[in-house]
């Protein structure tokens, strides 16, 4: 396994503010690696350090085993797809894509062939002479990616490139981008605040918060076994119940909350302390059968039904407790539910997680 990008204990300090705090990770060649975090978490700073626009205050960055600290951006074997794409408006599509090749003094014939080839790859054959402002949002996107890919970088960095697109197009581009990456085999490092983008496309996702990595994992593991409360809250929808921890038995802890007692899988905790229990909306069972074991049970009142097709949810009220979101399967069985009804819900012990 070849490691294309290695970041070792990298920090960046602006004045007294620590934007990136001792971050380390490795990206294996050919992987799609995402860095996911809310705005202001330091992910853009990290990306700019990899691209060479910023120098780390501390730590080392290696690209293909070569230390790149101090090397200016125009000499690093990485290319960046900018958040606003930064296509040159005074040039046409061909000139934009050929720009980097021309700087490398590649032969004219080779440039033409390469541009033609990469345009075909991104599905824009014959667009060479188009002006940038004649392109649609999705086409601009593809030109920006083609412009970077044509240089065959060791690592392609992408800074929230789908942010400016509307929802429908974004869904479509997600799939396209994933396919393109699989096809060209280039290592992608993708930055986003949109968890769905990260989960759909990535081989590995790093969740970043306040300058630190909370967890690096596959999308499935992030979703199923978040290691911190932040990850549990940030990745996917989650209900959070506040309670107190009573005792521990193996992997499970007993939690008391709002006059109920639950068995919950332990994340990180301290005995006798306040604790947050996370349960995903789709983990709830509606009207669970009496004979099921290892199930926590609750009686709630339906406050509202939030209809959103396959994503429909029930907004339920726990007596003396918070609102709880429960996934509502769109089938006949629960079509009779209406606001004001009482409802029994429950969930398997291992489908909930506790963090202090």
């Amino acid at each position: 396994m070849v490691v294309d990008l290695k970041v070792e204990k990298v920090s960046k300090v602006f004045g007294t503010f620590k934007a990136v705090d001792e971050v380390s990770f490795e990206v294996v060649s050919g992987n799609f690696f995402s860095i996911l975090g809310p705005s202001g978490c330091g992910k853009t700073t990290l990306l700019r350090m990899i691209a060479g626009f910023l120098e780390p205050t501390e730590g080392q960055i290696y690209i293909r085993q070569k230390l790149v600290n101090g090397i200016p951006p125009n000499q690093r074997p990485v290319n960046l797809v900018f958040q606003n794409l930064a296509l040159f408006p005074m040039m046409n599509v061909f000139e934009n894509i050929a720009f980097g090749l021309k700087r490398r003094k590649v032969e004219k014939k080779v440039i033409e062939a390469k541009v033609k080839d990469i345009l075909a790859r991104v599905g824009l054959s014959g667009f060479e002479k188009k002006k940038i402002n004649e392109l649609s949002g999705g086409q601009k996107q593809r030109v920006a990616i083609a412009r970077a890919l044509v240089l065959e970088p060791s690592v392609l960095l992408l800074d929230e490139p789908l942010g400016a697109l509307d929802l429908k197009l974004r869904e479509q581009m997600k799939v396209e981008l994933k396919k393109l990456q699989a096809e060209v085999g280039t290592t992608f490092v993708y930055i986003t605040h949109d968890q769905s983008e990260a989960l759909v496309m990535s081989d590995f996702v790093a969740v970043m918060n306040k300058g630190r990595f909370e967890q690096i994992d596959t999308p499935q593991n992030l979703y199923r076994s978040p290691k911190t409360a932040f990850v549990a809250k940030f990745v996917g929808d989650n209900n959070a119940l506040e309670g107190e921890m009573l005792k521990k038995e193996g992997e499970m802890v007993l939690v008391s909350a709002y006059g109920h007692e639950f068995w919950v899988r332990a994340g990180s905790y301290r005995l006798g302390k306040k604790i947050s229990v996370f349960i995903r909306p789709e983990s709830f069972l509606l009207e669970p059968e009496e004979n099921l074991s290892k199930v926590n049970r609750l009686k709630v009142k339906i406050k509202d039904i939030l209809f959103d097709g396959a994503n429909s949810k029930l907004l339920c009220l726990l007596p003396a407790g918070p609102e709880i979101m429960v996934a509502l399967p769109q089938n006949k069985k629960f079509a009779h539910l209406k606001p004001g009804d009482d409802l029994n819900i429950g969930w398997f012990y291992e489908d909930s997680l506790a963090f202090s």
Partner: protein
Amino acid sequence: MIRTLPHSKSYSFLFKLYIVLFYIFLFAPLLITCVLAFNNSDFPSLPWKGFSLDWFLAKGPDRVGIFYDSNNLRSIWVSIKTALVVSFFSLVVGTMGAFLFEQENFRFKQALYMLTLAPLVIPGVILGISILLASNGLGVFLENHFGWDVSLLAPGFWLVVLGQFSFITTFVVLVVSARLKKFDRTLEEAALNLGANRWQVIWHITLRYLKPSLIGSGAVAFLMSFENFNTTLFLVGSEPTLPINLYLQVRDGSTPVINAISFLMIVFTSTLALINLYFSHKKE
């Protein structure tokens, strides 16, 4: 009050009358100057004595048209030379100034910027005499101490160029800065990321982006130089520029050949202004 609000008939009539009078005031002197260039008379005045192109084409000896008036032709050529040199240097240094103030950070930047604006509030006459004094002082110094007689420092072509350059550059800085402010600097980062060095970035990206404002400010610099009088007055040597030469003629009595020159200047500057306007509209 404004177009969307109701207003009385007399308000709008009086306002329009005022505007019409204003435009008459604006154009009367120019129109009359142009018309009298074609009057078949020895004086630039009415009555109208018929249409004639004498003041453009006559070869003498009574009437000498502008195309055969070697004195005025020479001064036109001097003005064109001056304007070309001045606009070239102002454009180069002014663009550097715009880059310096928009993209670099250094100590005393604010102070240097204030100094850049200073020529806007210094009367042209003062600029002219200061430069005359300084270059004369330097010339005397060089002659006394080294025995060099530097003719460049005496009033003449190069001193006029320096004088005009000193304030026209400020205008170039302002015009180019205004466009550079709107420049998206991630384009520069993108070019760097694609392997360009700093000079390639400036050449391929930034200057290409600035092109409309460079053309525009170059044209303005040319016109400002071509028609400058106040600063030039004190710096001019034995070869007067056109405005100075015309002034000398107007002061000592005039012939319609001045109208002919004025007509050509009006046509020329209007054309240049329109071209400039066309380019600045295109960039929007």
